[in-house]
């Protein structure tokens, strides 16, 4: 309940932030919405010597329609994403997912960038990001680079971001004519995902699955793409049987985690179930 001491730094520009990160590297932590980090600091599970607050940097919070893509500033809140009508029209999976993260107070403070950089294995947004095959912009001392969503999540609370990099933007595609859904198994509606499945799919003129991407969270040490399921469904007519058979592969080769809410077998079962249900939900959308 009472964080350890730290030095608080509140840069007003990205440049300043990068310079501070370079100086302090592993002794520093970036503060976005604070919902994950401050919680860990209160429990004294995180004890950074330097806390760099990104909250004063004006140009990290934006929603920009870029035609076939939509750019979301890293410090955009879940609430802003949820309420953005342009985003709802263009890339509904993102607001769909944001609207079931936590509760109102969480959504008013929590940020997309903060969630992704924190990489909690039970977080909701990473699943959507993977399904959207989003691109993430990391800015470091040597400039900016784009990281594909598939390459972003490494393991538990670890991303491809270097200690001196800041995640500044997430670019998602316009889901033109595509259907999408995010479903999660949680003990209570506002809880983290025991299992969460996000997906987008496109049904072609011939009623077969033209394109599909599935992001799974809560199942292992990091969110991942259900590539096996995608392969099994691409080009197929999505009947109940085919969906179920494909969904059965969602935990193939995955080291399923175990905790008080779900054992390995149960979690695997939920992963298959929610993959099936997410696909069906997307089809009915």
């Amino acid at each position, binding site marked *: 309940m009472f964080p350890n001491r730290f030095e608080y730094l509140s840069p007003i520009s990205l440049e300043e932030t990068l310079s501070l990160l370079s100086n302090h590297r592993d002794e520093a932590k970036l503060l976005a919405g604070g919902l994950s980090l401050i919680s860990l600091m209160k*429990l*004294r599970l995180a004890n950074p010597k330097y806390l760099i607050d990104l909250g004063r940097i004006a140009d990290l919070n934006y929603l920009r329609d870029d035609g076939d893509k939509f750019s979301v500033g890293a410090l955009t809140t879940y609430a802003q994403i949820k309420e953005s009508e342009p985003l709802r029209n263009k890339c509904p999976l993102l607001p769909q997912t944001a609207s079931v993260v936590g509760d109102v107070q969480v959504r008013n403070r929590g940020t997309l960038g903060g969630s992704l950089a924190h990489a909690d294995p039970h977080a909701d947004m990473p699943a959507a990001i993977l399904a959207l095959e989003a691109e993430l912009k990391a800015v470091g001392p040597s400039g900016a680079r784009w990281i594909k969503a598939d390459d972003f999540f490494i393991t538990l609370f670890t991303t491809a971001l270097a200690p001196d990099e800041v995640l500044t933007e997430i670019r998602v595609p316009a889901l033109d004519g595509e259907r999408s859904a995010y479903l999660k198994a949680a*003990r*209570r509606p506002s*809880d*983290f995902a025991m299992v969460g499945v996000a997906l987008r799919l496109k049904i072609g003129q011939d009623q077969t699955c033209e394109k599909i991407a599935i992001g799974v969270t809560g199942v292992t040490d990091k969110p991942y793409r259900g590539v096996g399921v995608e392969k099994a469904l691409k080009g197929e007519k999505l009947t109940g049987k085919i969906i179920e058979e494909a969904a059965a592969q969602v935990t193939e080769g995955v080291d399923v985690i175990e905790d*008080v809410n779900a054992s390995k077998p*149960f979690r695997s079962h939920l992963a298959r*179930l*929610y993959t099936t249900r997410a696909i069906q939900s997307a089809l009915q959308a």
Partner: protein
Amino acid sequence: MMKLDEILVTRNWVGKPVRRKEDIRLVKGEAAYVDDLNMDCYQAAILRSPYAHARIHKIDLTKAQALKGVVAVLTGQEVARETKPISARAITRPATQYVMAADKVRYVGEPVAAVVAEDRYIAEDALDLIEVEYEPLKPVVTIEDALKPDAPLVFEEAGSNVLMHDKMQHGDIEQAYREADLVLKENFKVHRYSSTPLEPWAIIANYERASDSFVVWSNDQQHGRSLTNVCNTLGIPIHKLRLIVPDIGGGFGIKLALWPYIVILSLLAKKVSKPVKWIQTRREHLLAGSHAPDANVEIELALKKDGRILGLRMTDIQNDGSFVHTAGIYGLIKFATMVGCYTIKAMGTELLSVVTNKAPTVQNRGVGKPTMIFVLERMVDIAAKKLGLDPVEIRLRNFVQPQQMPYTTPSGEIYESGDYPQCLKKALDLIGYEELKRHREEGRKKGKYIGIGISAGVEPGTSNLGYYYTARGTPEYTGNAEGAIVGIDYDGNVNVLLGSVDSGQGHATTTAQVVADMLGINPDQVSMNAHVDSLISPFLGHSGVYSNKFNDVDLGAVIMATKKIRDKMLRIASHALGVPEGELALREGKICSAKEEEKAITFREIASLAYKKILFLPEGEEPGLKAIAYYRNPIAKLPNRKDFNIQLTHANSVHVAVVEVDVQSGTVNFLKYGIVHDCGRQINPGIVEGMAIGSTVHGLGATLLEEFVYNEEGQPLSTTFMDYLKPLAMGVPKFELAHMESPCPYTLLGSKAVGEGGSLPSLAAIANAVEDALQPFGVKVTSLPITPEKVVRAVRETKEI
């Protein structure tokens, strides 16, 4: 005993949903919980054991003491030197335990040292600097482990981990078994959970050097006893501790166990020259702030083919954790209403209190009765199924009938009133039972699994203290009672000071309604300070807010004190007006001649005579207009193993839960939930309804969400509200309620227990509903909580939750 008409002169307020007086402060954020009190304090933090079972070899506080801002420290060694061990109540084996661990720790979270600093942040920093050398010992965590012959002992001196083992029989159980057509046996497992009040434990202790005495502010629910406990433990006379209880942010029994920390804070306060404050964090609360014990219950019903239950046998093993003060209590409370709503003539009880290296237990809302009703109502459903009877039919066949009231159970419990069959029928009507059964059948054809669960339960109130000495002998407390001071102030308004506190039940409003109708005035003219100050409040050893005693003895004391005042006012008025007392009436703040209303004297004028113009008082009449009364429940029996009433009023209810189970994900959703309850005369239906719903949600949480999980090392895994899951608004159904009022003949207003309410029958109702929903899969529910994983496993393979 006074009749209602003698007590109430008007019927304007009692029975009406009068807006609560307490609310205006609360909605404005102007409450006075302990942490809100404006005092310049030091802050304390407590170092807690990271091991479930370990010896303490060394403890080094030098670095902590050296930290700037730290002003005092305390270790268990000092506590063991300066204080007496924690008093035990129900257990029969020796077990020495101090309020802080000295040479051995017995649960993760047990206090090991304490620090006082300028602020809490610094105090917590200091904790990180304390070095303790532990020698970990093998812990015992489960009941099974604790009972093994070679089990490590939590208290070596006890020679066993079973600190209480008692057997009792009431009625002729052998004959019941001989006459029975069928004996059914089941084993049930209920988990650890807790009501977790939103305001955690809070204490401010101040030591007054000049008088060598303490002033303590705390949200203690049972100050009557805490005073004794704290003073005995500290070895100080009673008058050296002034205990003040301000607003309490929820109690539910959980704040009955905080007195050991008052001892710790007092010792800390003695070392410094400012008050010392300790506010328990949520983690501390979940770790070591007291749970309802987990239990293994074996139960047998001896039945006739037609469903009549002739006898009931129960072996109840409680995992009481490691707090000697409360160990053993649950079994006895459970046993009190073991026969439930039924005319079961014979009962055999075996109670065991087992200590383990789990957190302390305390009398959490319901104190075992949720478990008892769960076990009994499940058995009744299981029996119905076995005998091919409808669950409604078997209950109707066994219910105590209204014409049998007051009904004495085999163990001596007196059910004073109630119409259980009518309550059940009303609940079924409320929920639309017949329609629901059709809906359920249709659903089953479509792969929708709907279940209806019925649970009938007695909701007892007012504990006859002394029950916990049943196994031990001479009790230190008997019966139950409360005190009240009622006075008229100079302006003619009424003020009430009760011996007990409030933790959210609207005592001040309820009291004002009763007093208003006793004096023919308006509740706005009645003020009650619901705080307690041991210096001035009229308390007894029984005083506190627990076991739903308010409607019985608290109101009883208020009524008796108000009556004294009323009688005195009538005497004074009679003298002043020259009208015989018998011809006087109380009307709208005046006492007047019933025949000639203009012949009147206001309360204000009476007060003026009593307080100021005292020479105008009648001959022999004392000045002043304030009366104290202590009131005890009239039917409490002396502790006697053969015939004893542990609870003195008995409300009752029927809950009907209607759920739909998603058999693939294991989630349980509510379609409907109906409650029909009978708490005798309701004083304020708005307050009663709120508690009926809120208490039911406690049961919902306990059944589906909440669980204190421990691993094999005795490490608690549920230490935050992220892991210990409470019901939230989206997961709670809308409840439908109906009421009945079977007045209690033994309380002054005919009112009965309200408070524990729905937390008692709800576990059974929900469990019965889930089992009913899963009937096509042949699943039986014998344990709690009902988690999604357990549901799916049961449906697919184990057939048992």
